[in-house]
């Protein structure tokens, strides 16, 4: 399986994602934002970080990068594109998934483990998982997902919510929502379910010694689903 991770100026989880993809069997290539051609890939990842310093709206400058035209084309033709954290923000700005990401409700950067519950298992990212609740790690300042009522209805009608913030029992009350996201949304799919944007960083949980191992479960399942 071939994957490509895009490096934008200011990306800082690109190496971590490269390590994770290679660890679980992908042959990964790092792609520079100024490149035009996307190599043949089974998965394209937009990694976390602070592309262009997040000085304009997060992800907005990166969404106009040269390589993004190829990424958008690839996504529109059904290719798998996953955006993590800043990558999610870029996907939103590029219009590949609906909605926007606002500043966290309490106006502070949050770095901690959270629980998420799978909302949709009929997609390449989460299908075939035995368990429904994962302990993932978040680290962001702008993860407060927001969209219009019409968009929300459409998202729910199409079953596009990939994961929700919850507690270890899977309850999705407001108190388990770390950033104020509408409906506790932590990750969302496009209509065709080949594009996933999510705030949690599975690449930081790929080893017993790190924040946990649910990231390993995520990646192992992902490569099996794509094969």
């Amino acid at each position, binding site marked *: 399986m071939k994957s490509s991770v895009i490096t934008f100026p*200011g990306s*800082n989880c690109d190496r*971590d994602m490269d390590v994770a993809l290679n660890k679980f069997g992908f042959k990964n290539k790092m792609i520079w934002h100024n490149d035009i051609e996307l190599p043949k890939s089974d998965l394209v990842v937009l990694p976390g970080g602070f592309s262009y310093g997040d000085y304009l709206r997060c992800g907005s400058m990166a969404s106009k990068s040269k390589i993004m035209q190829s990424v958008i084309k690839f996504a529109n033709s059904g290719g798998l594109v996953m955006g993590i954290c800043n990558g999610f923000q870029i996907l939103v700005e590029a219009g590949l998934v609906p909605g926007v990401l606002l500043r966290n409700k309490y106006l502070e*950067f949050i770095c901690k483990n959270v629980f998420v519950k799978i909302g949709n298992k009929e997609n390449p990212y989460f299908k075939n998982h035995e368990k429904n609740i994962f302990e993932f790690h978040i*680290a962001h300042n702008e993860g407060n997902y927001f969209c219009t009522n019409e968009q929300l209805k459409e998202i729910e009608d199409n079953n596009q919510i990939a994961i929700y913030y919850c507690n270890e029992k899977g309850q999705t009350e407001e108190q388990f929502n770390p950033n104020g996201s509408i409906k506790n949304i932590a990750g969302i799919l496009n209509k065709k379910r080949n594009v996933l944007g999510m705030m949690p960083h599975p690449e930081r949980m790929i080893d017993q010694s790190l924040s946990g191992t649910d990231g390993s479960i995520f990646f192992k399942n992902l490569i099996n689903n794509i094969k």
Partner: protein
Amino acid sequence: MLANEKIAVEHGLKADEYKKICSLLKRTPNITELGIFSAMWNEHCSYKSSKLHLKKLPTSGEKVIQGPGENAGIIDIEDGDAIVFKIESHNHPSFIEPYQGAATGVGGIMRDVFTMGARPIANLNSIHFGSPQNKKTKNLLRGVVHGIGGYGNCMGVPTIAGQTSFDSSYNGNILVNAMTLGLVKKNKIFYSKAAGLDKPVIYVGSKTGRDGIHGASMASASFDEKIEEKKPTVQVGDPFTEKLLLEACLELMAGDSIIAIQDMGAAGLTSSSIEMASKGNLGIEINLNQVPCRETKMTPYEIMLSESQERMLIILENGKEELAKKIFDKWNLDFAVIGKTTSSKNIELFFDDKKVANIPVNILVENSPMYDRKWKRTKLPKKNKFKKDNFKNLKIKDVLQKILSNPNICSKKWIWEQYDHTVMGDTIQKPGGDSGVVRVHGTNKAVAASVDSSAVYCWAHPLTGGKQVVAESWRNLISVGATPIAITNCLNFGSPEKEENMGEFVECVQGIGEASEYLNFPVVSGNVSFYNQTKDIGIKPTPAIGGVGLLKDYKKMITMSFKETNNIVLVIGKTSGHLDQSQFSRNILDDKNGPPPEVNLFNEKNNGETLLKLIDKDFIKSAHDVSLGGIITSVSKMCIKGKIGIKLNKPGYLINKFEYYFSEDQGRYIIEISKNDLKNVIEILNKNSVHYDELGILQKDYLSIDDKTKVSIDELISFNNNWLYNYMSK
């Protein structure tokens, strides 16, 4: 325009220093030259009051590759790897403008590290604020935390540990000390020593603006009521540009184009160019018209004294300009050839085809002032004699609640959850433990780091306090299973022109020196921050020690969380019941007199090394050093982390239970072992003459002291966790 004595004094120089400049130059300097002298000769850059004493610190050792004098210190961690590290203060700017002050402090220290070719792999910080009741404290704390996070998070470098304290002596002068560790291959270290004639001098990074002019001079003076006017001297940080600069520099460093490289920190282009020339015993010629400027009509004076951030000065091999430019173009950074090395041994500046400054480098550096300031020794205070009456109405549970929720002991989660501490995917011990630990990427090794200070002890008796901080750093590294290697120090003091403050400095440095010598824990880098003083009131002496240690096998790392019920808990080290200057004495008995706990370096070394042996033999399930708040505070934190309780059993000493549980005697650790290992562990402790007490046995749900006193884990958590959240949300 020529300078005169009045202008010199306005620049922070003393009248006799100005006379010295005129006599060394054999003429009157012009205004640009005077600016350069003032930047090089202020306390911050010249160490004129501290040099004499810093020379006494032990700075070498088997593992030391680079001691003080470069951008950062370097230690050997085997297999061709080395760790570059340093701590630095950004106190004055952070008080004036907390967000930018703290942010640029973090940016500056990371630049010091990657200038040497190392990729930063961990950040730490030591931050100190005024009393929580002081009306400025909350905003300063929020601003500083946001600033540290804003810069470090964007850079993608994890902030793995830190220290926060509150004390009214910081009401008018907060402290913000930032530390960075970087990883480098031993054969790819870069230095700032210029070499070779006619080599191109390159400017890269951000453009130069008018921000931060006189920053270093500002940091070399006390504050008064006009402090607001000093805002323009604070630099503005741009972590995004620094991230690009980091990647571009490391890309260029992979090749062999660089002769020398130096970041532009305090005193900007002035100190960077002069340091490179001085170390190489060369001259440098700079055409200031070539310096990329952000603002129009900047004068030579402004260009030389700007402290705009995210800039580097590089001396390249001839003919490598094109190759280097390509890399900086790729990262959208400015690149300009601004001058060349010369044989003149002078710094020569040109602007609009005129020579605007010409100063022999050696008089700026070697002839800089050095003072043997007057200082006063602090006598060891007399010990308090507490009587039974002092403890009569106290209940252990109430005292424990007060201590665990004390601002200086309570959980600092509110702070460290705002720092990205997991980026780079190698953080195996997060903030909240004894040390932060990161793996050396792709290996079985890990590096532990901790930052400590004990201002109260240093204030009560600087010599003991200085020793104690080093010992505490050593213990924090050992508690996670790391072998301590070396330290960096950030020496925060009041005015060196006051005998009391200078005395605190001299004796703290002496204490640090004695401890680091004895523990073979040399000082490889550091920074001095004097004039932490508003009008006549100085801070408590606050040397911050950043310690670094190595774990050869990261899987042997120890954490402080209790692991399993029925395991046995021991205290290593002797408890004599020293309450003076303890949290108990200061906050419960409201007694601020007496000496700090004595530091017995023999016991420190012996106890620590014996614990490392026990860890190596896999006997230790959890460990934590005993520090503020004594045995019961340490044990409570281990209960909280592991969500396991303990049945405590005070040994039959002659001291009372308050003295036993709350005293802050040094050289002690709490360790958890399994029952089956008890005999073996005791044998090793006896063999090494290490004193120990059997403290208790782990049980479910409760910390219990006797039949009457029981505290649930949930209570412990609420005692410890709530104070800071409540304080910040009010």
